[in-house]
């Protein structure tokens, strides 16, 4: 498997790519926070937030619709929020009697549902933009600067590094299962459910042992190459004037969005 299956980083030379990772992390979190703070049904503020997102997309050089395409990942979860439509507050719009349960959609419920949808959709997009314009080691470095404990960032750095290696290991194990599972055409292979579970459990156990033994070897070789307890990066992080400017302008926009959301 090729390495970039998991890596969401897309390089194009752009201002957004050049920004300090800390600024990008802060902007992302503040944007999501701002969406969460907006009251239900403040559509003009949501529209402004979307506009801001489009500008950010454009500035990143990845194209206006870049984050839109990938934002479908959040869709399956919207199913959970559907029940908000039947919120008891607000005036009923219809009565659906399904026999075992009677559902009454209300106007406030509908507003709530769509507000949740829009918030989630906007928030997912800025997170997509963050990982598409920031290399993962830089992102971790930024989180470390933002006071995330080094133990945790180092664990995540190792997780990221060995994700690809262990995924390949999974594919090897799956290929081995395929190779040993001959079947006649048209006849369903495999044993009973209990047999399948035992097989999957053994695969998980096998993967665990291989990972564990590999981590031991990794540690030994890291020690012999001068590992001192944490991972270092060559990219220095300096806040330039441009970084401060972007941060300031972005926060200003968020304040305006909040103002529009709460006043109108």
């Amino acid at each position, binding site marked *: 498997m090729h390495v970039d299956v998991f890596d969401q980083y897309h390089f194009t030379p752009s201002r957004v790519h050049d920004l300090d990772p800390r600024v990008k992390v802060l902007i992302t979190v503040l944007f999501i926070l701002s969406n969460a*703070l907006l009251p239900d049904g403040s559509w003009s503020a949501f529209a402004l937030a979307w506009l801001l997102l489009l500008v950010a997309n454009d500035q990143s050089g990845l194209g206006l619709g870049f984050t839109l395409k990938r934002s479908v990942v959040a869709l399956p*979860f919207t199913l959970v929020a559907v029940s*908000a439509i039947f919120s008891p507050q607000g005036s009923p719009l219809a009565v659906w009697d399904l026999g075992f349960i009677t559902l009454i959609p209300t106007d406030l419920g509908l507003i709530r549902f769509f507000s949740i949808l829009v918030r989630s959709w906007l928030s997912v997009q800025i997170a997509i933009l963050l990982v598409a314009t920031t290399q993962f080691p830089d992102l971790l470095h930024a989180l470390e600067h933002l006071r995330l404990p080094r133990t945790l960032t180092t664990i995540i750095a*190792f*997780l990221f590094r060995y994700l690809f290696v*262990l995924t390949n290991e999974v594919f090897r194990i799956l290929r081995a299962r395929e190779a040993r599972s001959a079947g006649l055409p048209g006849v369903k292979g495999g044993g009973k459910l209990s047999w399948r579970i035992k097989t999957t459990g053994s695969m998980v156990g096998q*993967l*665990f*042992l291989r990972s564990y033994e590999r981590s031991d070897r990794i540690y030994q070789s890291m020690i012999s190459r001068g590992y001192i307890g944490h991972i270092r990066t060559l990219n220095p992080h300096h806040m330039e004037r441009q970084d401060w400017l972007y941060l300031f302008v972005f926060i200003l926009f968020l304040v305006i969005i909040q103002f529009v959301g709460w006043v109108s």
Partner: protein
Amino acid sequence: MNFSPAPLHIPDGFLTIVVSAIFWLITIVMVGLAVSKTNRSLGEKQIPIMGVMAAFIFAAQMLNFPIAGGTSGHFLGGTLAAIVLGPWAGILVMTAVVGIQALLFQDGGLLVMGANIFNMGILTAVIGYGLYRLVIHQKKGIRLAVAGGGAWIATMAAALFASLELWLSGTTRLEIVLPAMLGVHALIGLGEALITVAALAYIEQTRPDLLNLDNSAREGGWGWIVSGVVISLLAVLISPLASGNPDGLEKIASDLGFLGSGLDAPFQILPDYSIPFLGDTAISTILAGAVGAIVLIGLVVLLGRNLHRQKSD
């Protein structure tokens, strides 16, 4: 690539700020404790191992197996991690897994990550390890059975808490979502339990030295057992009560002051609490949430200190 988002990863926008903040605070306290424990009691060697183990959990979640009717069970891994690596390391490993799923794949949100880590990392570690620790000196059969039971309960508890968080945020109606979530996760949890048992049995057969029971018992003491058993009991008791009689839970919640009678702003979980000169704004709500959160932190810190004393005994 079979990469289906599990229904437990709550995205941004589905939880209100107050609920997110409360669970962030609990998570920060627990993860902070886990970090300081790890720094103190484990060598630096443990950190690369935990990283690779986190990658293992992530990779193992791809191994899914077909159940009936086109659905497939897949593995969450929290219980296995807590049993094999110890509870604190288990929490750190699951935090890393949930964190990278949110950061890299947008599988779960950033602002709500505290709640996701709590549901999938902390609850599973407390329940999975707590129950297992109770029977750690028993025969292999009993241990495996309890590990499986713990994995099932942990999955159900995660689903229960996710439902409660969504409900407190005014995102869902409890009487609709809770039975659905618990129903789905009763099956998912079964898969989780069976794989956990099978994987543990396999590891015990091939590398019994990795499951050093005395070491594992030293990792956590009675505090884990008590919290594991209490939270499991709570989850087991609340779930049928809540899904069979959601009005009852709603009544308890409103009696406790969690739900306002008006509920005009669905995100207000402390409705009677508003700061006079700020009026009924988001800031006032945040402050109200912060007060609740501080109380919670106090409780968690007390619990943590208690755990620490248990350990040093």
